């Protein structure tokens, strides 16, 4: 079995992995990207809509254009990439086993590893949508791939369950292709994707968004013939008498993304049950020293720009780690989600970072207006930031000033989202 030694191995060549590889290379590390697809760029190749890059490039790019900027830089820096190569295991000793047609199995010994495997879509079965199992039920991202890359139409009349971004974007895309999108059906009282997409992809095309409803039955033996939807109560139970049949030949699901962490779990990396991604410190280091994570494998982002920025940071941290400048933490403090906070990343702050500014990402559990994001330590509010909206669909980013400015005795932090006027109670 062939053996390769590198400073840093990056698993996955999507925007997160590319940005990480570039940053690490720019710090002088010797980097290898391992990508299972035949090209770099990840999911972005099928995201042919625009809206990417506003933060980083101050331009509106399409997914492939955004990816190409990073691919060009990877080429300039001559970062090697093993394409058509899938990682099948990672060990805590940072040994990777990968497979491809030419080398067979490859053993890659790395000084540090950056996990950038992205995510997968939740399926109909994950959310237990009952009914028959005919052809014509797809996760929205699969339909996106079929239409945008392979040039095939997976149906003519669609119902989309879930108002995730991919679903809404596909509603518009399919309409452009001459298909009829009967409705986007969402179980919550608000859409789960970005407001921008709700306006530009649904409203502008008169596609009904039916809130507080779900699909309670799929019909059809061979091919989907329709779905029955019903209104739900607060506990998401269908309300009898509200059932309604919608004829369609295809049901798309856009009900959320799950970080793809099977490799991480098998390596023994600790996973946060809330994010389904690795638990990381503010250095994006996982529970195994020298293994870092970024992008959608760490937490499901809603903006690619944040994916790439997180990649850049992971790359820098991994490079610092292999140059032995990432000092081992003496201790760590926990950052815990509190009132109306679904999750927080990073989950830990290293004692080595008490004099650094820390960037937090979090999601609200339910929508609220005019709120403070407050940080509580030792029962005291140490910092707060006002924000006009806290929506589950839009990740909240807060920069916390250095902890050592706040307290002598630094201990665990709880983060709450509370309406203005109720803070610090």
């Amino acid at each position, binding site marked *: *079995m062939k053996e390769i030694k590198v400073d840093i191995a990056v698993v996955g060549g999507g925007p997160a992995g590319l940005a990480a590889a570039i940053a690490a290379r720019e710090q002088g590390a010797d980097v290898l990207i391992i990508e299972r697809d035949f090209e770099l760029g990840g999911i972005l190749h099928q995201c042919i809509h625009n809206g990417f890059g506003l933060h980083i490039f101050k331009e509106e790019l399409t997914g492939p254009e955004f990816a190409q900027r990073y691919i060009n830089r990877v080429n300039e820096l001559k970062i090697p990439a093993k394409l058509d190569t899938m990682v099948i295991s990672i060990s805590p000793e940072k040994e990777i086993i990968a*497979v491809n047609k030419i080398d067979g*199995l490859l053993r890659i010994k790395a000084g540090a590893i950056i996990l950038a495997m992205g995510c997968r879509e939740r399926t109909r079965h*994950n959310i237990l949508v*009952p009914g028959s199992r005919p052809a014509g039920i797809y996760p929205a991202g699969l339909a996106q791939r079929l239409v945008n890359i392979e040039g095939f*139409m997976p149906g*003519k009349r669609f119902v989309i369950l879930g108002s995730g971004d991919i679903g809404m974007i596909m509603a518009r895309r399919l309409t452009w292709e*001459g298909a009829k999108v009967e409705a986007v059906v969402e179980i919550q009282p608000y859409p789960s994707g970005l407001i921008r997409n709700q306006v530009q992809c649904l409203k502008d095309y008169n596609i009904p968004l039916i809130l507080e409803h779900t699909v309670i039955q*799929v019909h059809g033996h061979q091919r989907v013939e329709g779905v029955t939807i019903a209104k739900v109560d607060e506990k998401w139970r269908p309300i009898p008498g509200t059932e309604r049949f919608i004829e369609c030949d295809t049901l798309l699901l856009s009900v959320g993304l799950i970080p793809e962490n099977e490799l991480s779990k098998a390596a023994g990396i600790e996973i946060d049950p809330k994010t389904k991604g690795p638990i990381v410190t503010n250095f994006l280091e996982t529970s195994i020293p020298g293994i870092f994570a970024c992008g959608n494998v760490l937490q499901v982002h809603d903006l690619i720009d944040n994916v790439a920025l997180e990649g850049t940071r992971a790359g820098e941290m991994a490079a610092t780690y292999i140059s032995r400048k990432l000092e081992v933490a003496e201790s760590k403090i926990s950052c815990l989600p509190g009132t109306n906070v679904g999750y927080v990343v990073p989950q830990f702050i290293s004692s080595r970072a008490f004099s650094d500014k820390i960037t937090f990402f979090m999601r609200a559990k339910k929508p609220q207006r005019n709120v403070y994001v407050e940080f509580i330590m030792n029962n005291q509010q140490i910092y707060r930031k006002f924000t006009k909206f806290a929506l589950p669909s839009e990740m909240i980013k807060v920069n916390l000033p250095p902890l050592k400015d706040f307290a002598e005795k630094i201990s665990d932090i709880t983060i709450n989202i509370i309406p203005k006027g109720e803070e610090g109670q």
Partner: protein
Amino acid sequence: MTEEIFDCCIIGAGVVGCAIARRLAQFQLKTAVIEKGPDVCCGTSKANSGIVHAGYAAQPGTLKAKFNAAGNPLFDQVCHELSVPFARIGTFVVAITDDGIKVLEKLYQRGQENKIPKLQIITDTQKIRQMEPSLTPNVTGVLYAPTGGIVSPYDLTIGLAENAYVNGVQFFFNSEVVGIDIKERYKVIQTRSKEIKTHFILNAAGVHADEISRMVGLDYFTITPRKGEYILLDKKCIELNHVLFPIPTPISKGIVVSITMEGHIFLGPNAETIEDKEDKSTTTEGLNEIIEGARKLVPDIPVNEAIVTYAGLRAVSDNNDFIIEPTKVEGFINVAGIQSPGLTASLAIAEYIVELLENLGVKLSVKPNFNPIREIPPRFATLSNEERHQLILRNPDYGHIICRCEYVTEAEIKAAIHRPLGATTLDGVKFRTRAQMGRCHGGFCTNRILEILSRELQVPIEQISKKGPKSELIVGKTKDLWRITVEGN
């Protein structure tokens, strides 16, 4: 009309039909299997619990009891010959009350009457929890049946069919039997597209067996479908070493928590009598019932790890037992009402059919070149890294993983298509290779498998289906819909 006359035609390519086919392939007979689906194992045989029952549950004296007890011991050899994974992991019937223990004692007695070996009641709850750590702390005792096992029912059915096929049995797919004419010397089986002549008919049509029987004028039983729904969870989401049954109900063995040969955990089935024999849909009520039932055995069952839900139909006859017998219509044999434990019984039923045919005067001469062995292509997922490496050097397609969740390579998918009785549909690939069966459920590989099927079968991608005609996935190229609208105007 083909002029040849078959000796035996089996209607239905479920586990029962295929077990009979393989057994008959050992003799110098012209045998055919006629199946309405596009593949073998389209009916109940693909959606059941896959448990090779020990045999204590069936009422003594019934055919169920007889063929269960006789079928179970046959699995080791047959599965070995066919390279079908099978494991006697043992089954538990779990009591959670003192009354429950009394039921275990009754079951134990019944097991003795059915001559089931090695049964044991364990009431040392510490020992039980050691054997099965995820089990409810409320357990008061279990009936342990070490001869109970698990098998993948579609692996078995496909294995039986392939082996029958390579030994000379013909298979007709997409061939729904719509009528049977009885001539003086033979019978004519009518499908929508052809007529097949045969001397003997073995009716193994599952839930439709009563309709087939009526086609020859025998209206002496009805089959009522009784639906059972399932939830399959991700691999290793709990530790499980045995099949867990609750105390049985009057109509079923109850909602089990069990494990597949691949390590997936599954919950189910419930039992609901329905009317529509095609209705394999799952329901909110059914799934909730399963979850509730499963929690009684394993309180912390992680339902959010669900990968797939599905349902199968038990073929329940009027007297609730198997109907395996020659009939007033000479040469027409019913193998009907094969509900649970039909999978376990299938191999023994096939043995019995041979006996029946012999008694009916059929000359059974052994085929000297019968080959009982079925070789299967290596499975990447189950090999060691060194074996994988060597394999890829010999066949680079093994280096291309198509299904990322189950680690299924392009080589395996191609082999599944080009094998004897190979896959022609997405489901065919799925049940032969496990591609699309993992946690993303085809989200990432469906398009690639479509492409491979289209390329290897040399048919346009628009014609590739999930499970036969009218279940095609692709309706056309992009922009086609506009073309249709414009032309239509």
